[in-house]
């Protein structure tokens, strides 16, 4: 191995680290973060981008350097040095990725846990909800008894504000949101800022997936099964809701919006829409189509 002088290596290493660290924070690839979960995921992604940038530069650098430096001269028929391996080096490049993926796995686990992915209570909530709801099929109800919750439950951290529950039904090609507290039905999702929202989701026909890009969360919506998604919006505004599981020809058109209101605006919206219930009922499917 043709190892450059120590100082050069050091300078290269420092430059590499700095570039990676800078790019890991400034890649600008993610859309705005509108929920607590989103900032967690972005932190994780930034770390992964930092490591990926570093590795990318090292390996591509080695390739480009080799191609420039180690070219065969015209007419040179000799072979390169007969190096068949280097055990310490091989151990090193086995160990480093091992450590990296170990760190990433632990960090991902932490983030996932914070997002509520391992919430053991979720399954209980979910069953009670199922029992109260109108599940005519006893089979379906019973079916879920032995299952763990699918999706994201309450985060184990922070104060446990009772979440706003919304029932979500995915059908080809629309989302229908049902607010059990007030009986409101809507084709768009409206939620207050800084309060946990819990979506109890099911599908009416085929598989769908409920995706909020600005919230960095996604969960498949499965006919005959309930899944849930809990998140806390932190930023007011209007964001897309997208179906991310192929559900038919107009899959690309199956989207609507989520509006994060300030608490007052949200109350206003609930009031407006609870009274206007009768009119909106019929239009629900159409709203989703837009």
């Amino acid at each position, binding site marked *: *191995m*043709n190892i450059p002088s120590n100082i050069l290596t050091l300078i290269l290493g420092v430059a590499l680290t700095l570039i990676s660290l800078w790019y890991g924070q400034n890649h600008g*690839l*993610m859309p705005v973060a509108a929920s607590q*979960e989103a900032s*967690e995921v972005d932190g*994780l992604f930034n770390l992964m981008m930092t490591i*990926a940038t570093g*590795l*990318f530069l090292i*390996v*591509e650098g*080695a*390739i480009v350097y*080799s*191609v420039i430096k*180690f*070219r*065969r001269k015209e007419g040179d*028929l000799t*072979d*390169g*040095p*007969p*190096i*068949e*391996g*280097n055990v310490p*080096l*091989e151990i090193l*490049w*086995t160990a480093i*990725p091992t450590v*990296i*993926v170990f760190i*990433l*796995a632990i960090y*991902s*686990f932490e983030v996932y846990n914070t997002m509520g*992915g391992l919430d053991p209570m979720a399954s209980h909530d979910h069953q009670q909800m199922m029992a109260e709801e109108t599940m005519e099929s006893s089979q379906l109800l019973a079916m879920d008894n032995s*299952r*763990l919750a*699918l999706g994201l439950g309450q985060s184990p951290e922070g104060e446990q504000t009772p979440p706003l529950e919304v029932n979500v039904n995915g059908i080809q090609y629309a989302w229908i949101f049902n607010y059990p507290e007030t009986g409101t039905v809507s084709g768009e999702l409206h939620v207050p800022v800084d309060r946990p929202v819990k979506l109890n989701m099911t599908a009416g*026909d085929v*598989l769908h*997936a409920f*995706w909020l*890009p600005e919230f960095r969360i996604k969960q498949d919506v*499965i*006919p*005959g*099964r309930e899944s849930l998604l809990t998140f806390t919006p932190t930023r007011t505004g209007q964001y897309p809701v997208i*179906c*991310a599981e*192929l559900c038919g*020809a*107009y*899959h*690309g058109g199956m*989207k609507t919006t989520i509006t994060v209101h300030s608490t007052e605006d949200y109350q206003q919206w609930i009031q407006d829409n609870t009274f206007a219930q009768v009119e909106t009922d019929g239009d629900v499917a159409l709203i989703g189509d837009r």
Partner: protein
Amino acid sequence: MEQVHPQRKWQDYFGFSTDHKVIGVQYLVTAFFFYLVGGAMAEVMRTELATPDPDLVQPEFYNQLMTMHGSIMLFLWIIPAGAAFANYLIPLMIGTDDMAFPRLNAIAFWIIPPGGIFFLCSFFVGAPQAGWTSYPPLSLVSGVWGEEIWILSVLLLGLSSMLGAFNFVTTILKMRMPDMDIHSMPLFCWSMLATSALVILGTPVLAAALILLSFDLIAGTAFFNPAGGGDPIVYQHMFWFYSHPAVYIMVLPFFGVISEVLPVHARKPIFGYRAIAYSGLAISFLGLIVWAHHMFSSGTPGWLRMFFMATTMIIAVPTGIKVFSWCATIWGGKISLNSSMLFALGFLSSFLIGGLSGVMVASVPFDLHVHDTYFVVAHFHYVLFGGSVFALFAGVYHWFPKMSGKMVNETLGRIHFILTFVGFNLTFLPMHPLGLQGMNRRIALYDPKFQAMNELVTIGSYILAVSTFPFLINIFWSLWKGKKAPRNPWRALTLEWQTSSPPIIENFEEEPVLWAGPYDYGIDTESVDGDEEVDDMLAEVAGSS
């Protein structure tokens, strides 16, 4: 000297032959035909996606194209192309005259053309539109006959790849020439062992899933249909139990190709032979226990998501070993930048990106954001195009002189590489930010805010399409007017170069001589007890003949 030995006539390549070399070429040409078909479908899709509205084709037809594109590229292009190299090279590399079961081998190939044409015929009854994954319940409600043809074709093609795998394993394990122990066989054979193990263990499970899906579709059972009490998630598990290993089935043979190409054109021994050999087996084993990472956002409970995240991330370690070893192989060598080497280096740099994004999508919280988006589309194209297809072209340029007896035109080869590399990156690199920003996959219509980026992608895909022409011209021109290839134009050490180009029927004029390891470049290979022929071959490799 070559005239004494019988050669294949060109007609032999169009009929039923049990010669592994003929079958290998037949596989490669058939697969390439389907690559053009699948590629044409991709170009229609990209043209449609140049604008946000579904204005070129109906969304139903878009979904058909998308389903067919995926299925064709996987089952009729990359998997058979891997089998092509395996068929052609394994007996030559291990110094034997044919496969263990030549007739079975021919049958395995002859399933593919009718299977592929049957598959294409599904357009007459409405092609399947549920994606290559065919998730129920959607696959049960979007056209019965298209879907059924999809199932039958995949079963047929799966059978073909299983028959091939039985052959490869038996041949590699049982038919090596007497002096060749398992640790001195070429790495391509190791990678085919790892691949075949996955085919043998994985494909039958897919078959089971598809048989049950077929019952649901035709007979009205409800294995996977929630409306009748079944469970669509069970299908996903069975499907991915095969289809994740399938990714390795598609990439491992080409890891093998790279391990062959790099040492020859860098004039250096492969770095870490055993590490590369065993990391392939490790990938193969781990590949069997990671399938549910395709289902992180699906019906997978939290703890199971964590388990599959851990196993998936571990795969980065053996993959990393391979990539680093390849880099170390070229480091300090004497690199000839010919077409084969260019594609091999293109493989290294593109596959690296696919590998890095692969570790990212293995992380559950991040995958919950990008699953089923263009980020994932970018990821697997970097693995399967940047990985498999680049390595495949490296292999084609490397072994074309052996297969045809003609040298290729290097200038056209370099043009092919540059167009492919630029087109490929222009097509798939922008898909990463697209996915992260919120563009989901498998859609015919999308948010207008993504249009600029999509136009860029479409232009890239056109460059990729154009890149095929220099390749085709090169192949046909070289076959017709190319310079005659010597036995060993690259001065390589593996046994396939010890016979004429193209090799005679039954491969070797006389028993091949194992006078060096497959990668002993630069190692002093002094003549073995003054054997004249060995001296000749030594001189040939040293370039002084």
